[in-house]
């Protein structure tokens, strides 16, 4: 506690360490501001993200084999010069599968996170800002959505629409929605009372403008952190659904599915889980770093 106090004092006493909203800052050029706030996280994170995107984009060129090409003779071969990541139980080249899986990973994160964010943020903002019966109604809907077991929702979606990666992502996205809603709503309620919001209201700014120009920037950093964290979690969740048998269908090289099936060979062919696992982990770390970097760069308070 004392160290916390000391740091607080340090931060408060030394405004250059944590620049605060001042008139001087506003006069800085955008370029200079951004340059000052580009952290190693942003560099590393965007580097990893760009690598993933490039791999995904050029997957057919990078992968030496088709992801579903069965080579009966080469069953469960450990990593070697022809099969960089070894082969799986059907003799498929794991490296090619992982490379093609990168496309699905990118898609999972983009599609899943955008479903959750859009379905959560707009209602959260409206509910927190307008309040009253609209808030009651929206909160009730979200409460019901949240109270509903995720796996049951996934099962129903899969049962109605058929099992596929996209339907699994849809389920995961919907399940994640209330988290975004609650975050947005809580921040909006807090922000609504802030002086400058009330000031903006007093000078007659319209509601949409207040919501998006004055309130939204308040929770943007938290939202970015949440989106990046959720994007990673979505990759994990799609693997979890594969574990239950509701995820991507064989022979899809989706990373979660690779892990879920490779798991049974954990002791005899550990590369089947370790190598896709490392790729998954690196990807999630990359998105997190990117999120951190963006947060530092975009933080409206700084």
């Amino acid at each position, binding site marked *: 506690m004392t160290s916390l106090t000391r740091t607080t004092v340090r931060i408060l006493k030394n405004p250059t360490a944590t620049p605060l909203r001042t008139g001087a800052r506003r006069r800085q050029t955008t370029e200079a501001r951004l340059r000052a706030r580009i952290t190693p996280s942003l560099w590393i994170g965007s580097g990893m993200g760009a690598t993933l995107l490039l791999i995904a984009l050029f997957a057919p060129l990078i992968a030496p084999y088709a992801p579903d090409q069965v080579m009966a003779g080469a069953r469960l071969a450990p990593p070697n010069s022809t099969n960089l990541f070894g082969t799986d139980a059907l003799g498929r080249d794991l490296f090619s599968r992982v490379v093609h899986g990168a496309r699905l990973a990118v898609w999972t994160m983009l599609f899943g996170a955008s479903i959750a964010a859009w379905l959560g943020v707009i209602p959260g903002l409206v509910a927190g800002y307008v309040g009253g019966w609209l808030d009651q109604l929206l909160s009730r809907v979200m409460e019901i959505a949240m109270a509903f077991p995720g796996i049951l929702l996934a099962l129903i979606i899969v049962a109605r629409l058929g099992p596929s990666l996209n339907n699994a992502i849809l389920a995961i996205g919907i399940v994640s929605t209330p988290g975004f809603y609650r975050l947005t709503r809580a921040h909006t309620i807090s922000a609504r009372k802030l002086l400058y919001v009330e000031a903006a209201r007093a000078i007659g700014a319209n509601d949409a403008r207040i919501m998006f120009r004055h309130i939204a920037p308040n929770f943007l950093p938290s939202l970015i952190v949440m989106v990046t964290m959720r994007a990673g979690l979505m990759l994990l969740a799609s693997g979890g659904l594969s574990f239950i048998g509701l995820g991507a269908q064989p022979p899809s090289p989706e990373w979660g599915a690779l892990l879920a099936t490779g798991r049974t060979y954990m002791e005899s062919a550990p590369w089947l889980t370790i190598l896709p696992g490392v790729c998954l982990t690196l990807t*999630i770390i990359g998105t997190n770093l990117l999120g951190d970097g963006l947060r530092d760069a975009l933080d409206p308070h700084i």
Partner: protein
Amino acid sequence: MTIQLARRLLGAATTLAVVSLITLVALQATPGDAATGMVGDSASTMQLQTMRAQLGLDQPLPVQYATYIVKALRGDLGHSYISNKPVLDLMLERLPCTIVLALCAITLALMIGMTMGIAAALRAGTKTDTLLMSGAALGLAIPTFWSALVLMLIFSVNLRVLPLIGIDHPLGFVLPSITLALPTAAAIARLMRSSLLDVLRSDYVRTAHAKGLMPRRVLTHHIVRNSLLPVVTMLGLHLGHLLGGAFIVETIFALPGLGRLTVQAIFDRDYPLVLGATLFIAAMYVIINFLVDLAHGWLDPHVAHEAI
């Protein structure tokens, strides 16, 4: 106050009613019903129809729903189609394991996550911060079934210091709790750091300081309190998830928790059991939500009058 409490209770009741209705409709919409599963692989059409009639599956949906609600209000959640045992008993058998596991995991996660998050925020930008946040990133990035297996292979199979499966031994909860706590701790650490930094840099901390308040007062009354808001929200979400059962961890460590019961019931199309489990999970959310709102009121005076 009383009116608001009553409104809240009414809201909770609505939630539970709507959740059970949606579940019932959804289950009806799911291909395959309990009767198909129960009569086995070799059943004739006649046998199936008999079974459906016996279970009341041939009744119209509103009748099924009304029957269920009336009984549920009397505390009767019905009997499992598959085992014929009361749903409530089946769930109560699995509840202790789930509660112990959830509380162990959430406590562990809170301890690790808060420590990491606060430490990282106070040393923002230093190597310690980078190290801690890399650890958190790793914790978030590892699939549960993977970490569960690795922990099991290391501590139970190779080192043989912890029991492999089951809850006969109190140490049996150690590995499952760690497995479940890892991602939650990582999430808390990240959110705590980000939120604490937000507060430390915000206008009102500066204002408080400008008013001449003592730093300690600034700290306890404003900074930690305010930075806890999103953490509490997230904690509630995670606890709710855990109390609904942790299917993957229960499966791998062979624990008799609610998660396995619910998933099995879904695959069996055992409607009464699925409905019971759904209602339980929904009730947990309602209660936790309420607690989270109370905590928000306590932490942030702005929302105090809106919590209740």
